[in-house]
């Protein structure tokens, strides 16, 4: 029975065909396994769920600890107040700009570099690889980096949010892996024989075959830009340039009274009340693009060959 070829059968089908029953030991194992995974799922899901229901609940109810599984006294006041805060809008606008242009810049630098490194015939290949690798483990440190950025005139300059972090060496190597695994030399040779130079080959042959890796790079870099706050904290002093995360930091963490940029005089207590209400809604609103991007990402990740590219 065992010797029947089952090579092409999926796991599920195979299960149906398997005539063996699980031993008791196995039964226990599967039960525990499933249970633990179930708990893990709860641990991951509940906080996120809580944020959602809290964002539409009455703030006093939240404060009293009445909100557990269901929203209480549904109100969209939190969102209304959030959208009244002009910094949220500028933050959103800025972050979108930084993310779109920043990611484009990233791709422009990273993809070709990964491609070149994946080709065995790249001159100085070993040297270049080491050149990149060293920077992963040793650097000048925070201060010299910031001095350099200042010298380049990028302080308090929105361009800095696009240009800084332009190349992630890690990502370059992920691209390299992908190209090495998926674009064989033979394909290249065929393209050369057809008269395409390096650049045309790259553009017409490699890129079309690289949709998954481009998608992954877009994901990595875009999320990186979207979520970054520290560079903005250090380099930007004009509020107009603040990205969303920096505005969020003031709302969620330093719990600063948000400075009045026009609008009626809010007393301290009003400000504190607003601050509390908008914490939850601000989390949701700032995460919306991620939430939208997420299903798209899943699609690529669940396609086995992308996972293979990680190898």
């Amino acid at each position, binding site marked *: 029975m*065992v010797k029947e070829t*089952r*090579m092409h059968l999926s*796991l599920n089908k195979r*299960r149906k065909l398997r005539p063996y029953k699980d031993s008791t*030991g196995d039964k226990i*194992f*599967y039960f525990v396994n499933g249970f633990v*995974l179930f708990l*893990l*799922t709860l*641990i*991951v*899901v509940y906080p996120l769920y*809580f*944020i959602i229901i809290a964002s539409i609940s009455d703030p006093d109810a939240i404060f*009293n*600890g009445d909100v557990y599984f269901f929203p209480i006294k549904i109100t969209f006041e939190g969102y209304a107040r959030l959208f009244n805060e002009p910094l949220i809008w500028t933050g959103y606008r800025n972050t979108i700009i930084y993310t779109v242009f920043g990611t484009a810049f990233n791709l422009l*630098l990273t993809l*070709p*570099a990964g491609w*070149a490194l994946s*080709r*065995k*015939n*790249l*001159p100085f290949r070993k040297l*270049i690889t080491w*050149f990149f*690798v060293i920077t992963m*483990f*040793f*650097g*000048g*440190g*925070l*201060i*010299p980096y910031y*001095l*350099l950025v200042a010298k380049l005139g990028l302080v308090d300059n929105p361009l800095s949010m696009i240009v800084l972090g332009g*190349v992630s060496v890690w990502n*370059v190597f*992920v691209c*390299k*892996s992908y190209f*090495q695994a998926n674009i064989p030399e033979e394909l290249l040779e065929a393209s050369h024989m057809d008269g395409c130079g*390096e650049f045309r080959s790259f553009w017409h042959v490699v890129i079309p075959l690289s949709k998954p890796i481009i998608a992954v790079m877009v994901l990595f870099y875009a*999320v990186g830009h979207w*979520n970054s706050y*520290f560079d903005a904290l250090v380099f930007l002093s004009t509020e107009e340039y603040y990205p969303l995360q920096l505005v969020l*930091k003031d709302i*969620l*963490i330093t719990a600063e009274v948000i400075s009045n940029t026009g609008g009626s005089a809010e007393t301290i207590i009003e400000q504190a009340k607003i601050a509390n209400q908008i914490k*939850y809604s601000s*989390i949701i609103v700032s995460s919306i693009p*991620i939430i939208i991007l997420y299903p798209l990402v899943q699609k690529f*990740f669940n396609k086995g060959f992308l*996972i293979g590219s*990680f*190898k």
Partner: protein
Amino acid sequence: MPLTHAIKPAPETKFVKISFKKNFRKNWRLLLFVLPALIYVLIFAYLPMYGIVIAFQDFTPVDDILGPNANWIGFGNFLRFFNEFRFWRLLTNTFLLSLFGFLVGFPIPIIVALMLNSLKNQKIAKKLQTIFYAPHFISVVVLVGMLYLFFGEYGLINNIARSINLEAYSYFLQAEAFRPLFIFSGNWQDFGWSAIIYLAALSGVDPHLHEAAIVEGASRVRRIFAIDIPAIIPTISIILILSIGNLMSVGYEKAFLMQTGANIVTSEIIATYVYKIGFLGTGEYGYATAIGLFNSIINVILLVIANVSARKFSGNSIW
């Protein structure tokens, strides 16, 4: 291909070895692909290294790095750091935070990957995997914001505690709560994402191996140890080495957001201290750079040690 090949420079091609000059003349255009990234890294990663010299100067924010007024003080900054009352505490905090983070955070993704892989219903496994890596995309600001909302003085956890007549606990004021909070939130966020690599390796396991094992009466648990784990050992080694090399550069952005006046005795790590010395107060750039340099050097030493040991013990290494 196993992960080692991702980083290790490839050996010479198995084709006919062509001379370097010939290769260059033929393939110089390829260099242009990598040139932008090279220039970028040169400017933003290597140029700052040159700025390390200020670690040996008494440098203020308005000074020039190699200006004529450069105030050289040799190892003065380093000596000052070693004599600080907080020197050992900073080292310990940084090291312990990374070490515990590593001890807890390293096995969990492996275990979860093994568990997911062992699920009979792989469709559900895929869905769970997706759920598990969702938190990875949350920004650090939102994550810490959530921590305050849940664990703050009047956060969800304390409100629940009060309502069932338990003492509320100040997670953000008690110094000993900092590390657990930091580490477990980090794990909550990243275990799913880190598990992906292991799941990828596991999916490459030949089903025949499992078949054969079942026939021989191996239990599921036995099969994990006999088949699954060996399949991911190479991956584990590389990740292990990389983690050890990064032991001293634990996420300062998050620590910075989680610091309060009350937990500073455990939450002040080298990187956050460097930030404070350099950017707050009078901006002692030279001193801050010296501390940062010290940190980097320790990292490199750890990395070398890790790599050498790994090569001796398992044959896998980064170089």
